[in-house]
């Protein structure tokens, strides 16, 4: 065991699953009679965030059923994985996340990796069960530092509109969802992903500004209500 090796321990975060080994798979046979939420890529997201906060010369190794190991190196912003991102498993099975020191001999022999942004975008969008990442605050306001390279990322028109909003002003997640008429879970996923991609800056509200009410309830707008601007008409015309 290396000094700074760490594994994701969901038992600390999911009381209902505390008797079962974490697999990230709600179909685990160990959990008969208990519904265990799928934590998906949450463990990987946490490992990446920790390494971003305390950079070390380490790699993240992700093992899961039916896939060869995924190796992530934040220092070089690269990853190595045989699975193409078009086949990204949104609900990984039997996932295991380990942070381990780089082995210079292995690093020297490794071929150049693939740019990490597209993978981190997917991880951010498929972790935390649609809730806000644990290191983010619901009442904090977020603004974009720079746009993600959307031509290289699978994205929706709603994500594009929310991103445009974040380019202009600081918004808490609830207001972002409300203003863009988006599902709050989608807004949280977007913020999670941008946070992992280090594309956000945050500012905390003054104590007097902190709302005591919950996020507004999301009611999807009727289709005819979405037909306002040129963006909507272009989206329809282009079949997006």
């Amino acid at each position, binding site marked *: 065991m290396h000094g700074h090796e760490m594994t994701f321990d969901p038992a600390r975060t999911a009381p209902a699953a505390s008797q079962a080994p974490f697999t990230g798979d709600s179909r685990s046979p160990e959990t008969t009679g208990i519904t265990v939420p799928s934590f998906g890529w949450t463990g990987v997201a946490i490992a990446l965030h920790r390494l971003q906060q305390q950079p070390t010369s380490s790699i993240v190794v992700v093992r899961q059923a039916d896939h060869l190991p995924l190796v992530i190196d934040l220092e070089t912003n690269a990853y190595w994985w045989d699975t193409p991102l078009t086949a990204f498993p949104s609900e990984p099975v039997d996932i295991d996340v380990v942070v381990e020191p780089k082995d210079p001999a292995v690093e020297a022999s490794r071929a150049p990796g693939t740019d990490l942004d597209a993978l981190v975008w997917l991880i951010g969008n498929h972790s935390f069960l649609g809730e806000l990442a644990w290191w983010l605050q619901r009442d904090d306001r977020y*603004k*974009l*530092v*720079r*746009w993600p*390279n*959307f*031509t*290289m990322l699978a*994205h929706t*028109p709603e994500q*594009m*509109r929310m*991103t*445009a*909003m974040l*380019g*202009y*002003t600081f918004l808490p997640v609830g207001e972002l969802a409300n203003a863009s008429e988006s599902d709050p879970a989608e807004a949280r996923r977007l913020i999670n992903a941008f946070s992992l991609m280090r594309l956000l800056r945050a500012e905390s509200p003054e104590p007097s500004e902190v709302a005591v009410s919950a996020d507004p309830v999301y009611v999807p707008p009727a289709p005819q209500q979405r037909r306002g*601007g*040129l*963006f909507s*008409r*272009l*989206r*329809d*015309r*282009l079949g*997006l």
Partner: protein
Amino acid sequence: MAEHVILFGGPMGAGKTTAIETLSETEVVRTEAANTDRETADKDTTTVALDYGEITLGDTDKVRLYGIPGQQRFDFMWSILKERAKGMVLLVNNDAADPVGEMLAFLDEFRDLYDRGGVVVAATRSDVSATPTVADYSAALTERRPDLVVPVFTVDPREEDQMRTVLMTLVANIEMREMFLTSTASQPTSAAAR
């Protein structure tokens, strides 16, 4: 019918004509001539006046796509079109000698659009030259205007999905800016509220 003029600007050889061809639903009207400036861009022809394509949105809107000549000697064309333009896709060639400098020079020429948030930067040929990165472009833009977050993407102008993303982002950005300016303007000042 409402008309929305979108410009495609940038240095010679950045892919403006190709980008319009990819997006336009009609055959693009091309006004190219023999390129006599092989030092800047090694291609047979270059745009000397305008390229034109369009996207029709039902009976109500038409998006007009104008490719404007990349050479400074045609800059009289720029001033005519930028008055009518809603926004601009600024294409820069990533394997040029100084693509970041070229981007900034063009933005100076189109300052009004830039100030209105009506610009998306699209870096072509990033498969040939990996640098500058989108982060490099963004850093230069932030240094110039810290209050604006200009979208910067890598693109292959032949790829329809990528060019649609660029166009949709430009429109989303313009509409969001208008929305925030409207909401800011409509908020009563403290004096008025009293």
